[in-house]
């Protein structure tokens, strides 16, 4: 081997990557050439210098953000589906089964939060000094044009900047919320339930609360980082083992959005009072419906994502990869805002819709029943404040389970409410249903259960429940 040939082999020689014969040849060349030995030393020294560079460690909370990104990406629904055989955890439910207790806990926290805040608001004396500093719902009622302009302005921001701005706005709200919801650890995870079988149901379970946008994959870092702050790590630590807790933070987004809903509900009630819109809150309801689910929900709503390149199969794969949020895109065209919001919340998968109206006399009891029913039903749900103590619980679930849930809600909240309203005389609950509007082959029922206080002046005899 010539000196020049040996020179080309010096790096591999240094790394011990030469076959024995070539190594011996380089050894001979090195013995014969001082210049070659100097080059080898220089290369070795160069490699040593690179070795001296300090290792950079991942930033704190990186694993949590990865978990949140995975959850938001929806990869959970896709990856295990490709896994080979064995029993339990080979289905997409394996991941969800891991997260289910946390999902249920987050849902229960939401209901408890609603209860705590509404009851607190309902009993506390009205005081202008106690109005929250960033009462968006109130602002919407009092200065709709200003608010709309603000929303339009916010929509011009890029997603990251928007989220950061909202995080800053929400900081005092989250602090207030933490104070107002002291009972989180008391919420026990739901007992293990029978395995789910319908894929749409699986997707619904990991879908975030209504009106709140899922994190688009390209934006998940900022979003996941933001929601991680809102997730109560310490309380989860007490309830879960360490490994599960890690991945459980993936649903921090759900908890955070649930917190937003509680704040929104509180704001709605306060707004209705401040604006003095009357006992039924029609003005506020109208404003909410006119402006969409809420200014916050609107500002967080996802932008339609571009179709994945690579043909139909690739798009299908991409759609599956984005998992729970694959169908959660803003519809266009003739759909009204309310329909659009509903379509967004439940995806574009079609299915029937069912609307049920229930009355209550005691909000605390009503929420307790709602909490229990939703926990037992173990479904993804969303609560939207409608003002004047009215709110709607929406959920997407199979037909048979929807009927069960309606019965639970009707037999609980409405019966108790009407009984109290009638001075202790037990009567059938007042339930009014609207005919379902089938749009496509039924896979899920989009259930909207509206709750409102019993109106003593109405004088109507409650009707028997109609569960369709």
């Amino acid at each position, binding site marked *: 081997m010539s000196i020049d040939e040996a020179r*080309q*082999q*010096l*790096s*591999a020689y240094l*790394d011990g*990557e030469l076959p024995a014969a070539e190594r011996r040849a380089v050894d001979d060349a090195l013995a014969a050439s001082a210049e070659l030995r100097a080059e080898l030393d*220089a*290369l070795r*020294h*160069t*490699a040593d*210098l*690179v*070795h*001296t*560079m*300090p*290792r*950079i*460690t*991942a*930033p704190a909370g*990186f*694993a949590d*953000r*990865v*978990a949140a*990104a*995975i959850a938001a*990406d929806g*990869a*959970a629904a*896709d*990856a*295990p*589906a*490709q*896994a*080979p055989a*064995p029993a*339990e*955890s*080979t*289905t*997409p*439910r*394996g*991941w969800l089964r*891991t*997260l289910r207790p946390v999902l249920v806990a987050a849902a229960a926290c939401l209901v408890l939060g609603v209860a705590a805040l509404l009851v607190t608001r309902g009993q506390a004396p009205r005081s202008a000094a106690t109005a929250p500093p960033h009462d968006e719902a109130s602002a919407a009622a009092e200065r709709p044009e200003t608010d709309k302009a603000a929303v339009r302005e916010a929509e011009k921001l890029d997603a990251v900047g928007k989220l950061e701005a909202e995080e800053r706005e929400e900081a005092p709200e989250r602090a207030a919320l933490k104070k107002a919801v002291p009972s989180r650890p008391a919420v026990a995870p739901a007992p293990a339930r029978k395995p789910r079988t319908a894929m749409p149901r699986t997707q619904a379970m990991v879908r975030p609360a209504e009106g709140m946008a899922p994190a688009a*994959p390209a934006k*998940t*870092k900022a979003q996941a980082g933001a929601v991680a702050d809102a997730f109560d790590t310490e309380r989860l630590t007490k309830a879960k083992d360490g*490994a*599960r807790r*890690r*991945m459980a933070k*993936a649903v921090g987004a759900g908890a955070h959005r649930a917190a937003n809903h509680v704040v929104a509900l509180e704001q709605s009630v306060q707004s209705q009072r401040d604006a003095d819109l009357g006992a039924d809150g029609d003005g506020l309801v109208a404003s909410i419906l006119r402006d969409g689910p809420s200014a916050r929900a609107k500002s967080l709503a996802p932008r339609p994502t571009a179709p994945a390149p690579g043909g139909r199969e690739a798009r299908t794969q991409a759609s599956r*990869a984005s998992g729970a949020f694959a169908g959660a895109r803003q519809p266009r065209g003739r759909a009204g805002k309310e329909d659009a919001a509903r379509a967004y919340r439940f995806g574009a998968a079609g299915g029937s819709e069912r609307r049920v109206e229930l009355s209550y006399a005691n909000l605390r009891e009503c929420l307790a029943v709602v909490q229990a029913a939703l926990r037992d039903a173990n479904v993804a749900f969303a609560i939207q404040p409608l003002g004047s103590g009215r709110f709607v619980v929406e959920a997407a679930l199979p037909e048979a389970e929807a009927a069960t849930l309606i019965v639970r809600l009707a037999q609980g909240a409405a019966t108790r409410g009407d009984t109290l309203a009638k001075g202790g005389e037990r009567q059938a609950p007042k339930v009014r249903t609207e005919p379902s509007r089938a749009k496509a082959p039924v896979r899920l029922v989009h259930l909207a259960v509206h709750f409102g206080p019993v109106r003593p002046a109405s004088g109507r005899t409650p009707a028997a429940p109609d569960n369709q």
Partner: protein
Amino acid sequence: MPERLEGDDRLVAQAQRGDAAAFGRLVERHQDALFNGICRMVNQRQDAEDLAQEVFVKAFRNIARFEGRSAFYTWLYSIAVNAVISHRRKAGTRRRLAAVSLDAGTDDQAIDVADCSTLPDVAAEHHELGDRIEQAIARLDDEQRVMVVLRDIEGFDYEAIGTMLGCPQGTVKSRLHRARLALREQLKDLVV
């Protein structure tokens, strides 16, 4: 080449069966090494964080396709290298992005190399030396930088590097040699 970490295979098998917690442990095991390597390749902490997160998400999505023919970490790093190459490609004309960003003094994003030192004078010395090496690596072209990172920082053998880059070992050998010569040239006042 990094040791095949004890227990990786078991965790991978669990993750392939849908055990999210097992994948979480894999993330914890490899996040620092992966983040370090990506940081050195792109020389932007924020970009590195985004890319590392993207790599883990992709890994989770495709974990069922991992057949165990290489170490999990090698497979993970393959995804990382592809992500970095794609990222650099998107950067387009900013081929020497890292060097430019360092020259522009974006201290908030540049990598802090002094955080491992304990004494002030040692820290200063390390900082200066680290800066020099860092800039030298940053000024390599993309292909050379990847080679230096994979071999001299991460310690992969030629076979693993060839697998990651999809090229034969002979190509790895020649590319790495050119990269080291280029690096030596930039650091000649320290090396000679």
